[in-house]
């Protein structure tokens, strides 16, 4: 029974596809996958906008939206209606074709990235041998979309925002990919379902074998989260949009449905990168404790995804925005060395996997943790607290 419930969507799709003539099946199967992904994640987008507004409100001692429907639950509907009925304005000087294509170029690659994510046991649209590479490859397409939006609007703020956005996305792609490489190194595969399989099982019958419970995994997960926040242009790395300085950046000349598409793309990118983080570090759809393993796998995945989204909302409600030089310094002088050391620690962890003496696990943990902590302390001292590196002084503002 639980087995059937776990495989519910897989069986359902198999049954639906089986109802159609054989010639159609080849086309029907991916169409159903795509439809399901778009439907589920667009729905999640709507829910998330509400959760984000409510959550941000509470984090800042406000109520958040509570006017539309009970507790404001119909707010996404009102927002959507407002977006769809707004006038679509294209600046006279804009490059109309590129301006029109940019939102499409933004959303399409992000939707493609969902193809390789395993949402549950056997619940993956395409199991590419190089699935992780596919994810990062299509993710790279969004940078061009940001440029298209910024350039075609013919607005200096939008171009500035686009340049900031591209520079930021390229810079943070390096730590993002390198922190994922550590997982690939240990799991020995680029295919996301097999990375999830590599985290199956439990230590001593209760501690899940997730990568986040290893020193390199913990550091990698945190680095991945930071890079993912920057990659999806969210606060505190929301410089490309910086409302107070470049008035929404590359989105400035977009309104109505096109703006909604950008908004959708941004959130879908956040979900995708969260889902990737879950797959790489948090054991994918696996249950955290063995006695809860009967809960359907997609529910575990959904719970972890919502947890990640909540974490991102929490970060957004807490952190102030960085300056551009801080952003770049942080990526290249802090994250990059740390993520490289993390890679070495992961290699050591993998190399010492055969240690069998008593307390080997604890020794490996302490060794890896010590190396990472020392690197972290030394880097942060050299960058932020060393003499002459302290808090910024202002020559004119004081």
């Amino acid at each position, binding site marked *: 029974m639980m087995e059937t419930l776990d495989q519910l969507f897989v069986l359902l799709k198999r049954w639906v596809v089986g109802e159609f003539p054989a010639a159609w099946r080849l086309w029907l199967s991916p169409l159903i996958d795509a439809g399901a992904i778009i439907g589920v994640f667009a729905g999640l987008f709507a829910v998330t906008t509400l959760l984000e507004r409510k959550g941000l409100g509470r984090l800042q001692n406000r109520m958040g939206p509570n006017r539309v429907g009970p507790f404001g639950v119909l707010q996404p509907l009102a927002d959507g209606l407002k977006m769809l009925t707004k006038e679509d304005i294209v600046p006279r000087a804009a490059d109309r074709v590129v301006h029109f294509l940019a939102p499409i170029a933004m959303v399409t690659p992000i939707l493609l990235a969902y193809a390789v994510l395993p949402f549950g046991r056997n619940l993956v649209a395409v199991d590419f041998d190089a699935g992780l*590479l596919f994810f990062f*490859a299509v993710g790279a397409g969004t940078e*061009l979309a940001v440029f298209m939006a910024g350039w075609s609007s013919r607005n200096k703020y939008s171009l500035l925002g686009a340049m900031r956005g591209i520079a930021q996305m390229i810079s943070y792609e390096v730590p993002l990919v390198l922190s994922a490489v550590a997982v690939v190194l240990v799991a020995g595969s680029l295919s996301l379902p097999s990375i999830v399989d590599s985290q199956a099982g439990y230590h001593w019958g209760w501690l899940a074998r997730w990568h986040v419970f290893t020193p390199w995994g913990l550091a990698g997960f945190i680095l991945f989260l930071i890079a993912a926040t920057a990659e999806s242009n969210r606060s505190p790395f929301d410089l490309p949009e910086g409302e107070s300085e470049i008035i929404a950046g590359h989105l400035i000349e977009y309104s109505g449905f096109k703006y909604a598409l950008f908004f959708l793309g941004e959130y879908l990118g956040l979900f995708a990168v969260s889902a990737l983080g879950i797959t790489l570090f948090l054991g994918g759809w696996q249950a955290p404790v063995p006695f809860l393993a009967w809960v359907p796998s997609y529910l575990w995945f959904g719970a972890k995804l919502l947890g990640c989204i909540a974490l991102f909302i929490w970060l957004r409600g807490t952190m102030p925005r960085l300056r551009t030089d801080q952003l770049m310094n942080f990526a290249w002088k802090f994250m990059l060395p740390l993520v490289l050391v993390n890679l070495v620690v992961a290699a050591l962890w993998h190399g010492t996997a055969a240690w069998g003496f008593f307390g080997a696990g604890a020794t490996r943990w302490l060794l890896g943790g010590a190396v990472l902590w020392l690197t972290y302390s030394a880097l942060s001292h050299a960058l932020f607290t060393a003499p002459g590196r302290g808090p910024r002084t202002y020559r004119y503002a004081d």
Partner: protein
Amino acid sequence: METAFYVLAAVTVAGAVAAMALPRLVHCTLCLAVAFVGLAGHFLLLGAEFVSFAQVLVYVGAVAILVVFAMLLTRSADAPPAWVVSRPGLLGVGVAVLVFGCLAATVAGSGLAGREAPPAPEVTVKALGERLMAEYVVPLEVVGLLLTAALIGAVILALEDRAKGGT
């Protein structure tokens, strides 16, 4: 599969032609990216997943962006649109046709065309990685060294620039 090939081929060729023919440089870059994606599709069609994704990652994600940055940083985007039908443009087309003719004649004359295609080997990423790390590790490292040297050179150039321009 046939249909997919023709669609992809059309997209790639159209993108490449547009990248050469369009008057605005930014449009050319975007069309170049389309051609790159089309090429990646071809690789995917041939079962070379890794090469295909690497193509997108490197060419669309990095090279196209590099071109964009170079374009925006070096010259004004409002340069007068240069239409391809000009004397140097036609000359270029002529040279391209000549080169293509030479290559096509050579390939056709070499007897390769009549050969039966060997069955495509099942290349996994793992096998690819093992080959790169064992058999071809020296060339890989040499390429890495070269790129690092280029990177350091670029940094040094940029630093010198700042020292001169700074206070």
